[in-house]
């Protein structure tokens, strides 16, 4: 038989003004199992709390109902208070007499009647409260960062500087991501490589960071503090413990193939470092093009390597490790404009290039040593058309969102072109110019002063005629159709999620939005967390953004990891679902409905009617369950229930109310 104590708070006059507190107390005393009821001027004050503690002892109370402000305000306060008594902190219910009663009803009779109902509900529910306990989850203080672009590197460096070991997994042969491909960064026109490669070197040499290049995350299980991660490092065919990165093999390799780092504008060897300052600074063999690996003939690199580091029989290495937290920084890719923009030639014209290709063209260490020339014939283009929003803000062909960085890098490209080809003409077709950011709009204005001609309208067609690219478009400001004869066209294409985003997102339990960007836990207040505890987002995998925003988000994610790692143990949520073995029929409805993959089916062996029986039952992982209760409703046999909000408790509240 439970012994319930009911305390009704005046909250000064906040509650007492429209609720007859004394009457509520009198009614409370008559309710079943209520052993004690009293009012209090300020229940949350030290004296108020002390009074409850004393009542607990004096009246041998085993659970408490407090009629006061919203539980969102002081539920934790009163739980903390109960933890100092003999009562379990979860033996507590709060009736919301202030925000949802006294403050919203002026008629005292109505307010009092409602307050009585709310107390009745709370008493009915409290009568079935059970002591609940949290679990301590040990925290494995090692972080995994997926993606070695600028965001991933920044997150790894910050976590490592905080003193925790980090493994950074990068799928390409080198760190650096997209940023290291860029020529300059807006609006300061810093050399991108000059600020990115030192970070790469820092990551590569940091004692707390292990870099796994050419590697991908294959499998993840577990939960915050304890993620079990399987990583596959693809074969590099080179023993990195011997290789010094001298580069002799690369100079002697006879096979050339288009370089993806140079966006197909330049060639690389089959044994290669993607670029000079690559980290790790050692080459890998591209098995698809290597003569030795495809035909068995050649072996030049093995002959010339002074250290005998070449390993043609190298295989993938698969390792499984445990991490406490994961930062996802897998970045973006550019939309495949060729397959969707047939009106721009669909990729048939060599001189219609993407913005990233232009970055390589204009880069001093790029395939043309920084000379802006047409890919088709190597001639300097005297007129260039830049088309913005190719794939962005175009739900018909591409994506509905704005890619955020293109207005600025479009202005940068115009500026760079006019800088290198002073007698050239540059036309920029735009929908809107969006330049929020420090120094951004000034940069755009300067580009116009440089001579870039901004035309507000979309390009409807690009075609080649007599060696020129004819761009048909519209200038909506003058209301004219315009046709520009260009030597080269640069398409500022939309950012879209990396290929891996969907697979990785589903593996990690991160929701994806309609465009497959990884979703943060809250768009305003939890921008780096995900819905899976212990997994954080950094950079463009969460949505298009520029470099400073990516870096800021990466540092924020690292901070979240450091906060998590400041604890040796985590407390699990006490109000979680649990399944009754006797009732569960193993149908698995709860498994597929759980958004946190917290429920699994397990085989158990039982004795039933003196026979051994093997059954499948569902089991809730207390580290993963967040306590939403969606599974409880899906459970037909009624085996699944939610602690703290059990079916019986809610039904008793309903019944209490229906005594009206």
């Amino acid at each position, binding site marked *: 038989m439970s012994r319930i104590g009911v305390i009704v708070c005046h909250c000064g006059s906040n509650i007492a003004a429209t609720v007859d507190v004394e009457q509520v107390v009198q009614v409370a005393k008559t309710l079943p199992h209520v052993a004690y009821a009293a009012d209090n001027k300020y229940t949350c004050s030290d004296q108020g709390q002390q009074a409850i503690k004393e009542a607990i002892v004096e009246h041998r109370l085993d659970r408490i109902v407090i009629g006061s402000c919203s539980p969102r305000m002081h539920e934790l306060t009163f739980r903390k208070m109960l933890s100092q008594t003999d009562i379990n902190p979860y033996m507590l219910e709060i009736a919301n007499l202030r925000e949802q009663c006294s403050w919203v009803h002026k008629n005292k009779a109505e307010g009092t009647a409602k307050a009585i109902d709310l107390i009745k509900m709370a008493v009915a529910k409290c009568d079935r409260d059970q002591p609940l306990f949290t679990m301590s989850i040990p925290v494995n203080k090692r972080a995994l960062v997926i993606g070695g672009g600028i965001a991933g590197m920044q997150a790894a460096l910050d976590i490592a500087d905080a003193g925790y070991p980090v493994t950074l997994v990068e799928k390409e042969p080198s760190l650096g991501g997209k940023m290291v491909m860029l020529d300059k960064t807006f609006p300061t026109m810093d050399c991108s490589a000059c600020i990115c490669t030192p970070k790469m070197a820092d990551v590569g040499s940091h004692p707390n960071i292990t870099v796994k290049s050419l590697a991908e995350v294959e499998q993840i299980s577990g939960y915050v503090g304890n993620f079990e991660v399987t990583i596959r490092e693809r074969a590099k065919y080179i023993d990195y413990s011997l290789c010094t990165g001298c580069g002799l093999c690369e100079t*002697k390799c*006879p096979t050339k193939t288009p370089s993806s780092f140079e966006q197909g504008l330049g060639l690389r060897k089959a044994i290669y470092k993607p670029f000079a300052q690559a980290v790790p600074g050692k080459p890998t063999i591209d098995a698809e093009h290597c003569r030795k690996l495809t035909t068995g003939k050649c072996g*030049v690199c093995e002959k010339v390597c002074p250290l005998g580091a070449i390993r043609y029989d190298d295989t993938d290495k698969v390792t499984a490790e445990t991490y406490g937290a994961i930062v996802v920084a897998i970045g973006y890719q550019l939309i495949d404009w060729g397959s969707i923009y*047939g*009106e721009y030639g*669909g990729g*048939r014209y060599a001189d219609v290039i993407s913005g990233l290709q232009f970055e390589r063209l204009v880069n001093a260490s790029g395939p043309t040593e920084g000379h802006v020339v047409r890919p088709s014939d190597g001639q300097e283009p005297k007129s260039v058309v830049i088309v913005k929003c190719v794939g962005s803000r175009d739900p018909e062909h591409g994506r509905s969102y704005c890619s955020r960085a293109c207005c600025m890098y479009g202005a940068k490209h115009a500026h760079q072109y006019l800088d290198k080809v002073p007698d050239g003409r540059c036309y920029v077709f735009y929908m809107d110019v969006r330049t929020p950011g420090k120094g951004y709009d000034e940069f755009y204005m300067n580009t116009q002063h440089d001579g870039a001609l901004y035309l507000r309208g979309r390009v409807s*067609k690009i*075609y*080649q*005629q*007599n060696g020129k690219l*004819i761009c048909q478009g519209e200038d909506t400001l003058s209301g004219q159709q315009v046709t520009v004869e260009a030597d080269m066209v640069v398409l500022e294409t939309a950012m879209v999620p990396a290929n891996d985003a969907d697979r990785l997102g589903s593996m990690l339990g991160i929701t994806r939005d309609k465009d497959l960007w990884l979703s943060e836990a809250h768009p305003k207040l939890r921008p780096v967390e995900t819905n899976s505890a212990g997994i954080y987002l950094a950079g463009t995998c969460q949505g298009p953004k520029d470099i400073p925003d990516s870096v800021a988000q990466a540092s924020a994610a690292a901070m979240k990891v450091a906060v998590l790692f400041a604890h040796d143990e985590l407390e699990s949520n006490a109000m979680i679902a649990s399944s009754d073995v006797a009732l569960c029929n193993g149908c698995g409805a709860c498994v597929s409905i759980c958004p946190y993959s917290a429920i699994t089916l397990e085989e158990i062996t039982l004795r039933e009617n003196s026979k051994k029986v093997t059954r499948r039952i569902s089991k809730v992982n207390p580290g993963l369950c967040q306590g939403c209760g969606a599974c409880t409703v899906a459970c037909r046999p009624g085996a699944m229930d939610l602690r703290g909000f059990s079916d019986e408790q809610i039904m008793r509240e309903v019944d209490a109310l229906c005594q009206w």
Partner: protein
Amino acid sequence: MSDTMRYAYFPGCSAAGTSIPYTLSAGFIAKKIGLELVEIPDWNCCGTSAALVTDRDLAVALPARSLAIAEHNAATAGLDVATPCAGCFASLKSARDYAASSEQRRARVEAMIGESYSATADVFSFLELMAQEAAATAIEQAIQDAALTLAGLKVACYYGCALVRPASICRFDDNENPQSMDRLVALTGAEPVEWAFKTECCGASHQMTEPAAARQLIERIFVDAAANGAELIATACPLCMLNLDLRLAEVNKRRQEAGQTTFDIPVFYFTELLGLCMGGGVRQLGIDRHFHPAEPQAKRLRTLQQLAEEQAAREAAEAAEAARQRDVRKEEAARKKSEAAADAVPAAAGQGTVADEKEVHA
């Protein structure tokens, strides 16, 4: 699609008027490849763009009536509908899609035309019909049997606006860079050129009302075809044909006055080119009925034997030329050798290094 190549045929108003060559040449091909076209009795005007700008209901009701007749008529019941004209195709297919999109709309269409219409039969243009695998294979076979070729002739395949657009209604080919006509024309041995105006508007509907703007639309099509080396334009639409073929003279006149080069780029129905290679005569196919003379291009037709002879002759000439140049080089080398011997400077070591490096970097 029907199992056999049998279709309900909607000729459209141009079939017996402005597009007689299309009717003749398509009929010739149909006979050759076993394509059966059963004319829908009492068909009426499809309404085309005129109905669309007058009244949306009219634009659905007019083609729907003909389609409903095709369903009810014993000879055409159950057959998909084929039409030569791109305008008819757009009207018929749009009406059919509209009626098939919901039960409510279908009932509405039935109320407008006063008879039942199930909207089950699909609608095909002649181009789509002939681009389908069975028809294309039969066409290839018929051309092989005739042993004729248009090899060497450069053709700009012009699809116009209505055959592939709007993509949601046509559901056929790429609407920016279609390939179906290019593939059919390539069967004749002619070379379809890569060009940019395959699906640009020819301005036909506006030639009467907005001549100043619409004439430019014609000219730029010829300009791009010429810039890409085309010797003729192939089309699959009677209205495009009429518009381009009839007004080329006017375009040329204007260009001549402006001191620009004129175009000798006749317009053909793609079916005329296919028909020629199946052994059709110029008059039989209606090629003599064009405004801009098309016979010179038609005369480029040769037998495969003639082509082989020409090729052999060309190869022989090339071989003779190569042999002559080889002799010249030999003489030159011999002359240099004797000069080098006279100087007596050994160069073997240097040559060796170059060869080594070549081997590594090759």
